[in-house]
């Protein structure tokens, strides 16, 4: 892409380094002169918010790991040790546990932003795929992290979810035994989950680098979905986007702080303050809120294997979105029909989340099936068909002209 300015090494040291490792130039072109569409709204700040959350989770996580003991007899007590005896241990633990929720809030906003503005379309397919890989890694990390405090919900949540692999024909039970490292969730399970929970965030960080790289090759999408045509349409990343991102991140952290300091246990399950007990099954086993829509899909299918396929299918299907959407127009602002279906999808996703927290009985099951069916129909039928039948609104010739049309009256008044 066309840059606003290029890096010229100033000092003798910079010139020396630039000939050997042009890293300062790389950072400069990626985060300083990188051309950013000038019409981005605040939904585009969630990338920065997510980066901040990743750093936060890794930092608090590393410090928690210094005090935590991954052993089935000691894990629960070591968390209480962190809460009671470690300096600011309560802040680390509440910050990390609620941080996971904030991470998912931000990633869901980020993903729905992508769906609304068609950010996955040509040439950003690989960007979307990398994002989906990050999402999968996040889910695995979040799930395993929830097991570590070794409360009742940790233990039984781990039991329910790992048992899903038992639905695979023939080899299912062997796979489950292999995952557990025994014949039930136990100390070996806790140990490997801790190990992987420590590993995966660094894999996420690696894929984030690829995600940002891909982004900087194709450039950012924007609310019009029209590619920048000249430097008129863009502003340099620094100071424009940098400041806006830092501002949005600090507002997000006010929201985050409310949870850490005032309602730290709001998003958690009280049963997780009861130490894991393999002889006592809790009345309702519920995963963390960010898995609830997928949990509802799992339970809405009467067949175990079918449920597992649908649940994983609901996620895997998202990888194919760039090819399922046949419309050439990116932004839903210019797609009068898709816009409605987008909001229906949002409502359906929230509805599934709510249903995932309820007991699977009576008409809940029926509504779950209805919404599950709709979720798949949206991506597999509506998305491909809409592109063929919809008449999009005329696109603005350029970002600058779209901005002018919006603010022009004010400017001339």
């Amino acid at each position, binding site marked *: 892409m066309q840059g606003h300015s290029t890096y010229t090494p100033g000092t003798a040291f910079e010139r020396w380094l630039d000939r050997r490792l042009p890293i300062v130039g790389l950072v400069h072109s990626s985060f300083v002169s990188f051309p950013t569409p*000038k019409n*981005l709204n605040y939904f585009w700040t969630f990338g920065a918010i997510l980066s901040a959350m990743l750093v936060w989770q890794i930092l608090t996580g590393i410090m928690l790991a210094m005090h935590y003991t991954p052993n089935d007899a000691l894990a629960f007590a070591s968390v209480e040790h962190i*809460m009671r005896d470690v300096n600011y241990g309560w*802040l680390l633990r509440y910050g990390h546990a609620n941080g996971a929720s904030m991470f998912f809030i931000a990633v869901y906003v980020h993903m729905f932003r992508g769906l609304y503005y068609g950010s996955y379309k040509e040439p950003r397919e690989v960007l979307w795929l990398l994002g989906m890989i990050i999402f999968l890694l996040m889910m695995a990390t979040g799930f395993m992290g929830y097991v570590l405090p070794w409360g009742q919900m940790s233990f039984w949540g781990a039991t329910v979810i790992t048992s899903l692999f038992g639905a695979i024909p023939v080899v299912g039970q062997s796979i489950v035994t292999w995952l557990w490292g025994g014949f039930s969730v136990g100390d070996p399970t806790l140990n490997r989950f801790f190990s992987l929970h420590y590993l995966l965030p660094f894999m996420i960080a690696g894929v984030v680098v690829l995600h940002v790289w891909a982004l900087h090759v194709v450039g950012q999408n924007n609310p019009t979905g029209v590619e920048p045509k000249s430097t008129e349409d863009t502003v340099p990343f620094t100071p424009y986007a940098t*400041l806006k991102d830092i501002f949005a991140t600090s507002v997000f952290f006010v929201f985050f*702080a409310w949870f850490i300091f005032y309602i730290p*246990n709001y998003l958690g399950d009280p049963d997780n303050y009861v130490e894991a007990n393999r002889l006592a099954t809790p009345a309702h086993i519920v995963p963390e809120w960010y898995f609830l829509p997928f949990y509802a899909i799992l339970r809405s299918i009467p067949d175990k294997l079918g449920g597992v396929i649908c649940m994983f299918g609901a996620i895997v299907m998202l990888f194919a979105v760039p090819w399922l959407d046949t419309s050439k127009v990116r932004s839903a602002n210019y797609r009068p*029909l898709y816009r409605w279906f987008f909001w229906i999808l949002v*409502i359906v996703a929230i509805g599934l989340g709510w249903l995932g927290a309820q007991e699977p009985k009576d008409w809940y099951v029926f509504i779950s099936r209805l919404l599950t069916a709709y979720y798949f129909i949206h991506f597999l039928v509506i998305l491909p068909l809409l592109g063929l039948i919809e*008449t999009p609104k005329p696109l603005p010739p350029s970002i600058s002209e779209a901005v002018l049309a919006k603010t022009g009256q004010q400017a001339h008044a």
Partner: protein
Amino acid sequence: MNANSKRMVLLRQGLLAVGLLVLVMPAVAAAQEAATEGYLPTIVKQSWSFAGPFGKFDKAQLQRGYKVYKEVCANCHSMKFVAFRNLSDEGGPGFTEDQVKTLAAGYKVQDGPNDAGDMFDRPGKPSDHFPSPFANEKAARAANGGGLPPDMSVLAKARSDEKRFPQWLFNAVLQYQEYGPDYIYNLITSYGKEPPVGVTCPTGNYNPAFIGTTPCLAMPQPIQDGSVTYDDGTKPTIDNYARDVSAFLMWTAEPKLEERKETGLKVIIFLIVLASLLYFTKRRVWSNVAH
């Protein structure tokens, strides 16, 4: 009306219907559940000194609550994550270190093995944790008719009523985090009530506040008016015992509550000031760009 706008109207109506359905579902569900399941625990919210953004524990109340725990609850309930030294920690019941030394010495704590290889009892030290009343789970169950008295260290965070929509939204905004002490208070004060017609407890004791599938729990009424003598003139009633011990158990579950809320206020004020400054800086920088 052309075909396109007709389609839009249909869509709009469809979306409205789906939206309404999603909004109404939880309310219908709650009503239906209440009608079919019959039993929902009755838990009346109480006012607590430690609620809200400026909440602080009432030291005198925690000391009274400790007395109730020690003389009544501790006969069956362990509190293994709490150490005697915590009783003199900042943000707690405010015992002095000397008081804690004396108080800890009043407990018998098992130590060892000594040089002869034997376990032995010695007076407690501030660094010891509260000794458990039973040697193990089996012993606890055997002494309590099969029921297991739960450990009380984090009990006040381990109980919650169902978070129903839309109540759970208000809980987040109003910072409602006191369901644990509310529950413990209600449980202790709800014994001895007449069960409704048709409800019997063949095993256990009737208590309409109990969170479970039935209003029957193994624990009999734990305390009577006058069971514990208060030294500060507070009336020795079940109501006061229940209130004080609930506050005490909130403290054992969340000993850093005051520090957390105080830090939170500073952090949030800092973040709001930072965000405001950033906002104006950002506006200034963007002022020369139409966007």
